[in-house]
């Protein structure tokens, strides 16, 4: 669970980015990574693993753990912590093995 520091919360309103999480509307701050945006919106688990189906969330925030994998605008296996959230972006939690052609 993460929250935005109050002074940044007010500043964020002016730089808000609208996107969707599994189809639901959400809002983040320009400059947030997709993973930070998910956490700011209360989403702690971003995928289930291809091996056992266990739930996973981000671990390292620096692009080395590959646990933050999500589907972004239809493309799977994207590291959410390495991609900046953009207006209109469609983020989907990734369940199990990535589908071929996604």
């Amino acid at each position, binding site marked *: 669970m*993460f929250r935005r520091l109050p002074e940044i919360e007010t500043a964020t309103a002016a730089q808000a980015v609208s996107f969707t999480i599994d189809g639901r509307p959400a809002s983040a701050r320009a400059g947030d990574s997709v993973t930070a945006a998910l956490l700011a919106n209360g989403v702690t688990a971003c995928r289930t693993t291809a091996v056992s189906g266990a739930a996973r969330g981000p671990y390292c925030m620096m692009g*080395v753990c590959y646990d933050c994998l999500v589907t972004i605008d239809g493309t799977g296996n994207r590291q959410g912590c390495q991609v900046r959230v953009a207006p209109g972006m469609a983020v989907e939690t990734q369940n199990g093995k990535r589908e071929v052609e996604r």
Partner: protein
Amino acid sequence: MSTPNPRFDFDIAVVGSGPAGLAAAALAASKGASVVLLDEQAEPGGQIYRAVTETPVRDRKVLGPDYWHGAELLGPLRDSGAVHWPGTIVWSVARPREDAGDGHRPIQIGLSRNGLAAMLTVRHVILATGALERPFPIPGWTLPGVLGAGAAQVLLKTSGLVPSGATVMAGSGPLLWLLAWQYLQAGARIDAILDTTPKENWRAALPLLPGFLRSPYWAKGMKLMLEVRRKLTVIGNVTALRAEGAIGGDSALKSVVYTRNGTEHRLPADTLLLHHGVIPNLNLANATGCAQRWDEQQRCWRPTTDDWGATSVEGVSLAGDGAGIGGARAAEEAGRLAALDALHRLGRIGREQRDQLATPFRAALDRALTGRAFLDTLYTPAEAFRAPADDTIVCRCEEITAGAVREAVRLGCSGPNQAKSFLRCGMGPCQGRLCGPTVTEVIAAERGVSPAEVGYYRLRPPVKPITLAELAALPKTDADIDAVFKH
């Protein structure tokens, strides 16, 4: 292979824009070499100075003066003439055996920018790939809600996010105390800090204390730690930890169980931040063929370098934490030394000039490294956290437990590469970054030999996953290559 291409795109490529990379690129370019600085992030700073150009946390008291020093490295880079390519993933560095027909053996860098891959040809590479947090495998560490302390620090720096709900921090090492202190400044709530520093480490570290007292850090560090201890609940001598999800489910963290003096205690937790120091991020160096050695004091693997950062691969140097943990200020100076050596090896400056220019940087490096031995010794994690219990997942990507690794050893796998082939540990996308150290230590403990004897994963490019499309479209003609670089 196709006709050797004698062109060089740049004299020097620097990989990584943390303190070592920023300082190296700035110095080399300012002395007239053509330099390209490559980094995967959109903005410079690496991890230690992450988001220093754009953090929303503008109140300097929160992140502290050491962080803001990073901003001072940006001006010299901008003024130096070095080309900066952010958003660039380096997935291969190699020096093929054939020369380019003119006696020079170019170094080829496989990289991706904007979804397109290409091979860059340079004469020298300085790897400044930095560090990552030491894996901290405990039962339940893969539950959503468990993150590295460094990860939480990135969330603070890049997005002004702090933990809400019940929050526990656990582990040992300077970053843990720094983050706790930053949270205090920011007004974030931490329910407890579980200090796993082993009691016996104090005894071992004591003789090294005089050295530490001479370091620039001890007073700052002391002040910071005392404030944290005064204002937060710190529980010491924690010898075991596990993270638990909801009963019967595993979709998120619910509590943390710790052992102290033989007794278990349970704390509710929505977020658990783990930290046991940082270790070199050596995948690229390893895949490039750089020899590495086990450092018993830092209890980690590090590429072998001379005191200019030169590795066992000609034309490839390493600077900063990627060569061995020394911290941000040491990284800067090491970057400058590597740049001077590269300039010398390329014939731009003579040996004497190199040595003379290096003098102040070497002095600053020595000062920055004072007291390191004390910290390394004090904060070595206990064996139970380096070679954990059987039911602990050690390879997160493939979900392989420590017990499975021990069983593989008993069946005849004597090293990590055999264990990898047998179990798949290390075969996931992280390429062993989060399991390599643990697998080595588990095998070493099971066999009763040192990690040095056991060895480490043999890594290969691509060191970061790359799409089939990018590989298929790898440009072959000069015009194609230019098209990628001109983006």
